[in-house]
């Protein structure tokens, strides 16, 4: 056993280094959100009297409205994706409906460069006088949230044994009742994970929001990008704004980590 010890030390050192690398910038932002403008100009000052000035400034600014808009966009996008995606994913996983081409399309849509799709959304929004509203943003977010959610669910449905459903049919359930009452409860945790992950993707996206809803209806990441200045007065609120965007998704992520791998690979890699 003593032979492998140096490797063990290296292993622990690597993990500590990784944790510190991840943590340091985040701790810096947390500290920054409690510093006064003068203290922010001295980056190595670790001891200071915390002030809530930055938080107060951010919480009474328009950023809260941007956060609310992001919430609306995320919820609408995810609701549509989950309803439509659940039925579709079941059909694809259970009956191979749509064949290989549909599966390929769903995978491809997840990784399309946003620059390909964004200009049509913009011109159509202009033509329909919907520019500056959240409608084009929701459609744009559907373009990547729907494929991701569906891809996740295909994997989860494929993992449900056919026999359960067949037994339910033998017991006298109708086709849709068997799906709703027997199969669906099995994948419910998966649907939850897919919904949370889809929401995170929508919440985190800036590119579409920047182009489709720039001025009066900014979503949260675009509003955060607006802090891109280096006056000390703005840095504190920027830190607080970053934390407002980050904390909800970090909390949500704790609940879905186990399901994430299976989802990302469409069920091809399992825990």
């Amino acid at each position, binding site marked *: 056993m003593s032979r492998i010890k140096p490797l063990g030390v290296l292993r622990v050192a690597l993990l500590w280094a990784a944790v510190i690398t*991840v943590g340091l910038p985040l701790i810096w932002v947390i500290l920054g959100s409690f510093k006064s403008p003068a203290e922010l100009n001295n980056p190595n000052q670790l001891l200071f009297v915390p002030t809530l000035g930055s938080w107060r400034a951010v919480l009474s600014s328009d950023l809260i409205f941007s956060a609310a808009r992001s919430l609306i966009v995320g919820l609408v996008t995810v609701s549509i994706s989950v309803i439509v995606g659940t039925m579709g994913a079941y*059909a694809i996983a259970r009956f191979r409906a749509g064949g290989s081409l549909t599966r390929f399309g769903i995978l491809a849509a997840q990784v399309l460069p*946003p620059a390909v799709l964004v200009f049509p959304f913009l011109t159509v929004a202009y033509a329909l006088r919907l520019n500056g509203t959240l409608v084009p943003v929701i*459609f744009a977010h559907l373009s990547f949230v729907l494929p991701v959610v569906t891809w996740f669910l295909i994997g989860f449905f494929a993992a449900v044994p056919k026999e359960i459903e067949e037994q339910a049919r033998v017991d006298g359930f109708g086709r849709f009742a068997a799906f709703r009452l027997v199969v669906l409860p099995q994948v419910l945790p998966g649907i939850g994970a897919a919904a949370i992950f889809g929401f995170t993707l929508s919440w985190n996206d*800036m590119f579409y929001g920047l*182009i489709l809803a720039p001025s009066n209806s900014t979503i949260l990441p675009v509003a955060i*990008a607006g802090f891109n200045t280096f006056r000390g007065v703005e840095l504190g609120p920027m830190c607080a704004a970053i934390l407002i965007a980050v904390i909800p998704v*970090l909390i949500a992520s704790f609940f879905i980590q186990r399901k994430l791998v299976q989802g990302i690979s469409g069920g091809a*890699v399992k825990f």
Partner: protein
Amino acid sequence: MKYEHKLLTPLLAVFAVAVGFPLLYSFWLGFTDYKLVNSGATKFVGLQNYISVLSDGAYWSSFATTTAYVLLSVSLELIIGLSIALALQKQKWVKDLTRSVLLAPMFITPIAVGLMFRFFLNDQLGAIPNFLKQLGLSYDFFGPGRALISLAFIDVWQWTPFMILLLLAGLESIPKQPLEAARVDGANSWYSFRRITLPMLSPVLVVAILLRGLDALKVFEYVFATTRGGPGTETKTIQFLAYQTGITYFRLSEASAMAFILLVVVLAIIVILFRNLEKASTR
């Protein structure tokens, strides 16, 4: 209509509106002289946009910039991610907490990560340059010849967790028996890693590399938050160039042509990825 087709139809309908239509429309835009603030009728101009994009040095230079960025960040993510995944696999103490902390960056909105590092690495206000100054060193993270490397490091900070996530799952799904057998036969750990673990992990490795590569190709937020393409045009990635062309200079049709050329590259990668995934799921 068959039952399964009824279930599939709503999905295909939304898909057609949110992906299919914009894709075709964008393809069409690439062959016109459409401008957002143009009052005149839009004309079909054939391959003109593609010719002007492809004969423009700026496009090729941003293509090269993006390629360098992708290669640097994804290979670092692979090496670091695999090492950490191997380390995590053997860890027992505070296992779940360590994993959660190490996976955290991938859930943060990229613009926040970009701004955080712009602040953290800033010459005057940043913690790292300040620390280096106290050691008597001076390093401008966003200076000429360095900015792209710093951007790649930001990518590594945020997306190595994605590698860890996939590779750890892959490692944990490898059966234990071959490794046990190798140890009984007296193989050292490096030998069994190279001859057993790595080959058995290769399908997951391919998927992880391709997914990360595709995502890194789309880099935009870090550039937007930190350098805006500078110094000079050193960090002007394709997605940023398309944004500038379409939004700052109002040349939507040219930007669409740019995006479509990128799409061809992306599609080629997806075909390889899809083959791998199909093979894995039918195995």
